[in-house]
């Protein structure tokens, strides 16, 4: 079934919080085909559901025709739509005894010790998730400071509610969260937090976790240079001994609010077939995701995929909407080129290099280390010294925070002849109509 190549592939199966080469395929989409997904909410639902091995509930990996290790997978984001009616979020508090080393990964019932216990819902509130074996509260998370948001019918705004509204939404939590049929998480609306009621927010949905399957198995939430740090020294099955092992990551969990309709991602292929996966949609979020969590929602995506052969990439690239680029990283106008040619003639410059925008994703323990990682990735991809990368990014780009503590987008106007050499010029031209 999964080997049948489909021009349009609908995906409705999800993992239990893991990404990696051993996950069952969702199906195979044609090179140039379209993927449609309806994913359950990310962080909070899986976090409070002890059967999960990671902090998200992403799709099974999608095989893409022609994708082989060493290629690049282009993912054009055509649509992202929120299906949840409401959600709850905020900052987290871990619950002692409900996990081994990592509250996102190695869950265990604090009473009977069952690992990754099956659970049932009894009532609402932070003690509603009960071990099916012994009845104890088995969730590894509560809220340190939480709030519940309800959306308008068109999903243009969100309004935080007080205790009455939060209680009302918790009573039909599954339905209000719009969890897809095959989802296995408990809805976070059950917790019914009610801080900052009456706060109105603008919605701007995007995809928090999207990328290609890494060559090693990782908890989906930890597939990033910052979150992956918590795997170091852990005794569970996904623990690593040294952070150099994080080079196997594909940085799918980037939480960039620019990964929205109209943007294009270019992802490194680390397993044959690519293994595109999608999840952790957010209804909105400011740069940095300052609570470390935001409005996790169920939602649909429509993605067009294309394989570019033989592109040596160490991490993902992003071509955001032009309006999301820093001003000085936007494509040149004809007037600017004409003015530059006049200056070139006056000052003896032989050629004005044409260039096009591109963002390199970097991740690491801190923003500084993430930026260093982006410098390294840019230098490797474009065969530039760090000095040249820094110079070009200073003069024609910049660095933006996707997520704290350590995911960044490094913008640069990259000389077109370099993009031609590495095989990326056509996808950038198409993105910006150049």
């Amino acid at each position, binding site marked *: 079934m999964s080997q049948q190549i489909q021009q349009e592939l609908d995906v409705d199966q999800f993992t239990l919080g893991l990404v990696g080469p051993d996950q069952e395929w969702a199906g195979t989409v044609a090179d140039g085909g379209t993927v449609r997904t309806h994913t359950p909410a990310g962080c909070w639902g899986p976090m409070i559901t002890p059967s999960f091995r990671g902090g998200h509930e992403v799709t099974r990996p999608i095989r893409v025709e022609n994708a082989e290790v060493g290629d690049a997978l282009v993912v054009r984001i055509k649509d992202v739509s929120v299906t949840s009616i409401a959600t709850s979020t905020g900052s987290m508090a871990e619950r002692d005894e409900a996990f081994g080393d990592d509250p996102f990964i190695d869950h265990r019932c604090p009473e009977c010790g069952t690992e990754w216990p099956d659970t049932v819902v009894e009532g609402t509130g932070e003690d509603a998730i009960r071990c099916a074996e012994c009845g104890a509260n088995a969730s590894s998370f509560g809220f340190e400071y939480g709030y519940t948001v309800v959306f308008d019918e068109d999903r243009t705004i969100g309004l935080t509610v007080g205790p009455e509204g939060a209680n009302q939404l918790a009573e039909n939590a599954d339905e209000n969260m719009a969890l897809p049929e095959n989802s296995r998480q408990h809805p976070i609306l059950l917790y019914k937090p009610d801080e900052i009621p009456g706060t109105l927010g603008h919605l701007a949905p995007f995809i928090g976790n999207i990328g290609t399957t890494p060559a090693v198995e990782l908890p989906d939430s930890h597939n990033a240079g910052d979150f992956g*740090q918590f795997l170091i020294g852990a005794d569970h099955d996904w623990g690593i001994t040294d952070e150099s092992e994080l080079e196997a990551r594909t940085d799918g969990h980037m939480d960039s609010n620019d990964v929205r309709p109209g943007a294009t991602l270019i992802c490194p292929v680390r397993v044959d077939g690519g293994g595109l996966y999608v999840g952790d949609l957010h209804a909105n979020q400011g740069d940095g995701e300052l609570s470390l969590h935001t409005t996790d929602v169920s939602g649909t995506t429509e993605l067009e995929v294309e394989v570019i052969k033989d592109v040596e990439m160490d991490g993902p690239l992003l071509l955001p909407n032009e309006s999301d680029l820093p001003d000085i990283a936007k494509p040149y106008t004809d007037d600017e080129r004409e003015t530059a040619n006049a200056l070139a003639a006056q000052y003896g410059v032989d050629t004005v290099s044409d260039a096009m925008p591109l963002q390199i994703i970097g991740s690491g323990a801190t923003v500084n280390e993430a930026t260093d990682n982006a410098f390294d990735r840019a230098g490797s991809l474009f065969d530039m010294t760090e000095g040249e990368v820094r110079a070009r990014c200073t003069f024609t780009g910049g660095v933006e925070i996707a997520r704290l*503590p350590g995911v960044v987008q490094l913008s640069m106007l990259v000389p077109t002849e370099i993009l031609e050499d590495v095989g990326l010029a056509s996808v950038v031209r198409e993105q910006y109509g150049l």
Partner: protein
Amino acid sequence: MELTVHGPLRGVTGSKTVSIATDDHEESVHSVLERFVEQYPRANQQLFDDDGTLRASVRVLVDGERADPETECRPTAAITLIPAAQGG
């Protein structure tokens, strides 16, 4: 004593490896962490809760081996410190 720190703790220390002053006798992991926080007060929230209890997901390795707060460390021990898990 040399400490290797991981995760967002490096935003506090500014480097991956830091040194803290030690006496010439063994001391517990908990004591080492307290003195680390004295040296880097902004690390407190990543290691201890409001009651001063070590957060459950904080991990400490002494010479590469998992250690409890009560584990005794030699003055020359190499300490690896992973703060409480955070993120979403």
